[in-house]
């Protein structure tokens, strides 16, 4: 038998494509046109405001008041504060190094050709947070200490998000295993922990960590506000992570654990080598969904007086120096774009990981 090629299917040209997909029936044609009008009526004024009528150059509010559109000089002038918060000007290189290491690590993990994925991934999850902490806090190795009250902007957002991400994955995995454990005490404690944190809004948790906890502590003991927020975010997100991982675990056939047991692997090795690699792979979309939610939830720390990326922009728009009709809108648009870039980046990265892992299994 000679193999026969499949029948030739011509690629549709752009005109055919339009006709087939957008104008196939009179109703479809009307809907297409309506949608176009709608899109245009939103996009055009926005472009007009954000680019055409916007002020790009200038040093003060007067430069913005002369234009009808966005007030970009505000963002440009405040960029340092947006990126570093109130971090001492001469020490900002330390933040740069922390950013740079993070970027380098993520870059390395993005490209499948580069070797040592596991080692780099392990370093990013363990050594990096510690190194970054030392770098940012200082007080050792001849680095002057920078109190956390001075941290803010993107720096604070990333510190809270990265801590939440790094802590919530392992904690969430342990809680998920705990919830499925055959040991009743472990199971009940896990369920109680998960349901407690999932039942309380993050705002409440943050508020309690910052304002109520000090009331219960013995006099004189103060708790760092940022530390309180970090612990709250880590525990809160680990409860959500636990449920995501549990979903992945439930999708794995019981026979996998039995086969692992039958070749002599104990509980932890069966989980670590056989069950979790499969369960986590299945959970990637939801895990990353959680990470994205977490990144956006970091904006809530502003209610306990920490200035994250959004908070610091908001504070800036309120200052008399930059009071124009467009300052606040410009700030919010900028914050939105920064968050969108980070979240979309994570989402694409997750897709890319899924594709690689899928390719490995099925080819």
């Amino acid at each position, binding site marked *: 038998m000679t193999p026969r090629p499949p029948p030739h299917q011509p690629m549709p040209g752009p005109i055919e494509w339009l006709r087939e997909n957008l104008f196939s029936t009179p109703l479809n044609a009307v809907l297409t046109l309506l949608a176009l009008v709608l899109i245009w009526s939103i996009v055009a004024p926005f472009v007009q405001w954000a680019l055409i009528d916007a002020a790009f150059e200038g040093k003060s509010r007067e430069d913005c008041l002369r234009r009808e559109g966005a007030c970009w000089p505000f963002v440009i002038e405040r960029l340092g504060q947006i990126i570093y918060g109130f971090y001492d000007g001469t020490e900002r290189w330390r933040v740069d190094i922390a950013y740079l290491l993070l970027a380098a690590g993520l870059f390395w993990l993005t490209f499948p050709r580069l070797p040592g994925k596991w080692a780099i991934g392990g370093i990013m999850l363990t050594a990096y947070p510690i190194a970054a902490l030392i770098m940012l806090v200082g007080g050792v190795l001849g680095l002057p200490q920078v109190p956390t009250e001075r941290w803010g902007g993107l720096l604070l957002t990333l510190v809270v998000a990265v801590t939440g991400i790094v802590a919530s994955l392992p904690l969430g995995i342990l809680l998920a295993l705990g919830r499925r454990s055959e040991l009743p005490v472990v199971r009940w404690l896990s369920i109680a922990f998960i349901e407690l944190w999932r039942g309380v809004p993050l705002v409440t948790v943050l508020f309690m960590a910052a304002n109520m906890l000090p009331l219960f502590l013995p006099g004189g003991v103060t708790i760092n506000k940022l530390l309180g927020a970090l612990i709250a975010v880590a525990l809160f997100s680990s409860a959500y992570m636990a449920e995501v991982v549990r979903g992945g675990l439930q999708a794995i*056939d019981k*026979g*996998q654990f*039995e*086969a*692992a*047991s*039958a*070749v*002599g*692997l*104990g*509980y932890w*090795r069966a989980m670590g*080598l*056989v069950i979790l*690699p*499969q369960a986590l*792979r299945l959970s990637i979309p939801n895990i990353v969904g959680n990470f994205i939610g977490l990144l956006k939830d970091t904006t809530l720390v502003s209610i306990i007086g920490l200035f994250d990326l959004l908070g610091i922009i908001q504070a800036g728009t309120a200052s008399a120096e930059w009071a124009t009709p467009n300052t606040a809108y410009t700030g919010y648009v900028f914050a939105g774009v920064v968050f969108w870039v980070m979240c979309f980046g994570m989402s694409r990265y997750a897709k890319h990981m899924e594709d690689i892992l899928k390719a*490995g*299994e*099925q*080819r």
Partner: protein
Amino acid sequence: MTNGCAVELIGVNKWFKTFHVLRDINLAVASRERVVICGPSGSGKSTLIRCINGLERHEQGKVIVEGQELTEEVGQVEAVRRNVGMVFQQFNLFPHLTALENCTLAPMWVRRMPKKQAEELAMSFLERVHIPEQASKYPGQLSGGQQQRVAIARALTMEPHIMLFDEPTSALDPEMIKEVLETMVELAETGMTMLVVSHEMGFARTVADRIAFMDHGEIVEDATPQEFFNNPKSERTKEFLGQILR
């Protein structure tokens, strides 16, 4: 306790909730002996062999594997499992690992073998089941028969003294049953102690030293193939043989 007994079950009882799956099971399998367990579905055959490596807990009686009684203690169960290999109906290969990695996992993590040595060992067993050329493929890329042979190789890499087969050919397409059975016949020729739950009467006739017939959680008949096929004692065995041999 009899000397030279590989597996011994004494008065074993088990319930699933209120359903009595195993009733007063007494079975002794000598070292190098090959026993085929057959019977209608739901008769407790699979549960019986799963009790031997502790995948199921028995509630009464004793399960003794190579002189060691199976207890509730985790370390003790794991020790027993190291000497007892198992092959499942649904293969249960690890889909995220290649055929070779499926076979090196236990030697590396349980027997603490260096990777290179584990790979050599795994390759030697993949050769024994006649699929060394599939070593770098993932289970999803193999046929059912090939997967089951990898599963046999995986169990053998622990160099067990006893092999349990839980309906190893029931999930296979007819044309693949033969290749798996041939692998099992070859394994039997090496003198491996084998307990096989199977409906393959041809295999039972040629390979088994004894055939045990189970019905409603009881071992109804336990005889040599000769006796079993030509001169069954119980009515239920006769009925069963009538149905499957026809």
